[in-house]
Structure formats: C-alpha cells, structure tokens
C-alpha cells in the first residue's frame, strides 16, 4: 500500500502560478494559502509513478445528478 506522503513542490512555484492566474496581490502574498497549497500538491507529486501502477483516470462523471 502507498503510505503517508511527503513531497517537493515549491512556494515560489505556487506563488508564480497564482500570479499567472491573476489572483489579487493580497492572495498571492498570503503565505498560509501558498504554504497549504504547496503541502497539498507536493505530497501528491511525491507518489512514484510505479506506485500508481496502471491506475487509470477513473470515470469522473458518476451518475449522481439524475
């Protein structure tokens, strides 16, 4: 099984992306927001491709809006 995660996304990378999206300067400078995003995405990035096996992209549109 895949265990707890750790990763390597950078604060500067996320800040750059926030600027690219045109988020207001206050939000781009919100250190806690940027840090949370780094923590979330870097932990996903840390999963090795081999641990994903042949996991496909699952069917996204489940029949919940009947």
């Amino acid at each position: 099984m895949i265990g707890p995660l750790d990763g390597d996304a950078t604060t500067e990378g996320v800040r750059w992306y926030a600027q690219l999206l045109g988020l207001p300067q206050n939000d781009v400078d919100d250190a806690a927001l940027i840090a949370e995003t780094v923590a979330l995405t870097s932990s996903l990035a840390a999963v090795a491709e081999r641990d994903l096996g042949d996991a496909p992209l699952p069917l996204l549109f489940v029949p919940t809006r009947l």
Partner: protein
Amino acid sequence: VNESLARGTLAETSALLQRGAVSPSEVLDSVLERADRVNPHLNAFVTVLEPQARRRARELERQPREIRERQPLWGVPISVKDNIAVAGAPTTAGSSVPLEYARDSADAATTESLLAAGAIIFAKNRLYEFAFGNQHRTHGTTKNPWRLDRTTAGSSSGSVAAVAASLGFGSIGTDTGGSIRVPAAMCGVVGLKPTLGRVPTRGVVPVSWSLDHVGPMARTVADAAAILRAISPGTEPAADPEHSPRRVGVALDGETPLDPAVRDAVREACAVLSQMYDVVEVDLPSSQLARTVLWTIASAEASDFHRHLLARHGDLYDPLVRRRLLRGRLISAADYVRAQRLRAVLTTELDSAAEGVDAVVLPVSPIPAYSLGDRRVQIGSIVEDASDAVTRFTPLFSLTGWPALSVPCGQSRDGLPLGIQIAARPGDDEVALAVAHAYEQMTPWHLLRPPEITSS
C-alpha cells in the same frame, strides 16, 4: 400540545399516524412547539417553513387511507439542509453570497422524493458555508445539544442538532468528506452516507460533483434506513438471505492517535459485534493519503463552481472558505488528474484490504466534540487543525463510494457522545445498515438523549 410526541422515533410516530391515533397536524404542532422553545438555544434552522408545513399537514389529512398507507413517511416532519432546494423557500447554502439557487423555485430530487413519500418538510437547517469550511459569522453558530459550549462539527450542523434535540424525526444532509458522519457522531445520532450515486444530487448546491453524497440522519438505524429508502426510490434491493453479513473487519491499528475514550468505545463495540459476527482485523489504506486526495479533488471542483461568485463577491465569503476555494484555483490539472488516479489506487487497495469481510468498522472521529471556537485540538502528543482531526477516518469512503454510517457507541468521560463508523461495499448499503441495526439492538447508546434545554 403534547411535546413528548416530538421525542419519539420516526418508526413509533409513523405507526401512530398510520393507525390514526394522531394526525399529521398534531405531530407537526408538537415539533413546531418544541422547536420554538429549544431552537433559540441551538440555532439549528435557517428557516422554519411553518405556513407551508401546516398547509401540507392539512392536505395529507384529506388523503384517503389507501394513499397514506403507500407513503412510508406519511405525516412525518423532516428537516432539510439548506443546500438542498425546496420550492417556495430560499436556499442559502449557509452563505450571504447571492446564489441562483436562492431564487430557484424547483424542488431538488430528494425534496420530490420526500414529498412523494408523504413527509412534511418543516424547516431548512444551518450548515457550514457552502458545506466547505465554517459557519459564516453572520449566520451564527449551531450549538451541540449535549453541551452548548461544544461544536456540532459540520457541515450538516443544524441537521444533527435538530435530530439530537428531537426537533423533527430525521433530516437530510450532504457528505463530501464526512459532513454527515462526523456531526452525527458528535451529537449522538445515526448519520448515513449512502453509496455514491444512490441518492441523486439534482438541486443540491455542489461542493464537489464527483464526491457529493446526499443522505439521512435520524435517531435510530431503522429510521435512517426508512428515510434512505424513501429518497432513493427504485434502488431498494430485494432481501437476500445469502447476502446477510457474517464477517466484520475492524480497523483499529493501535498507532493512530485516538482519544482514549474513543479507543475504549470502539474496542467495546467490537466485543459486542463479536457476539454476532466473526470479527477480524483489517489494515485499511492510508487515511492521510485519502484526506490529501479528497482535499485536492474537492478544492479543485469547488473552486470551479465558485469561480465567478468568488470574483464578484469574495468579501462575502467566510475567510476560511474563501481560502479553501482559492487553494482550489491553485491546483493544476496535472495534480487533479494525479489525485483522481490515486483515488483509483485507494479503491483497489480498499477492496483488497476488505477481502473476505462484509463490512468494516472503525472510529468516525478520533475525538469527541471539541469546544466551540477551538481551531486546533490535541490528541495525545499531537496538536493539529480541528477540522483535519475530525475528518481523519471519513474521506476514504467518500473517495471510494462505499456506504458508511455513524452509529452512537458510547460517551466520553464528560458525557459527550461517540460514534463508530460501519462501511460496506458500494451497493451494500443494506449490509452496513444490517450490521449497524444489529449492533444498536445490543447496546443502550441510541436511547440516550441530550439534557433537556429549559427556557431559563
């Protein structure tokens, strides 16, 4: 009006209604009178739909007996979380942000099903803003009926407070990562997240299209099951004696930090279950990974729904909700795809971990209800964000679509309710309910009620 009528279970009250011992108006009066007295202390409702509910009760009373007998919730007052559309009432989703839904006059699919089953929708419940963070400061805080200085948790805050305090016989909530199960555990009621897709989400203000579930909360497992069947018409499985549960897997690894009272209560619950089932240990996939994957998917999907609302009305959002939505904007497509692939991995891992068992049992939350206003909590030597802590064990079943419910299983040292989570494979809602019902019948916890709130 006899207020004790409001304090019965749905099954008891339904039986009285069906045999004509009480009328829908009498039951409704009892609930409304109690709500009038108790709700100011709890803040469980956004709107009490008194005129509509009274009209509905009188309409039901004019129906011929053969029609009422076919309606399983005939005359039963039920509340609905205020992110589910009810024609003729605004839907705020717990926010001051102006929503199209607020003007929508069409019933949600669940509302239609409740009405077709004969229910009286008498109120709309408070919730965390957009079911995605906190209760908005301008909407007030819902209090836990067991102790008014404690949280109900969320996001279905008003629903569980109402059910626990006997303000209605059940409520409909939504659960994206634990929003039915966690508050149900905190307030000592039964809360079911059904199989993903079993209950349609049409007419629900979305959090995350691929993760949102609609489900019931009630004071007993049988009552929750009755509401589930009513809101998922056409999906009730035939009774299958070959499929009755025999083996239950317990996931209580000894390393995960838990409040000692929670650990003791789950162990005692397993001892009770072992009198009816083969109980074996199972090792579930990483709850930390599940939580990370869920937050990535939910944040990204939610941020798309709120893209224009946030740009126009950003200042109307609660700061925490706003930040979570902004975080979703910063998640790249590649990260979203990776999270969905990990979701597939977790689904496979859960299937393997649960091989040979019919249901799995684990805590709902590692702690009982914490103090209102606390943002961080301590479990053993670990201090962490309160909302992260209480949703440690719920995301796995949201991601994988497994039905899972919270059932009362004990009390903390200071008298706060605790819950165990019982989950089964997708489509096996009735299996999870059967294990929960069998457990409930062997224990006294569902019979406990919060201290009566007096008007002083």
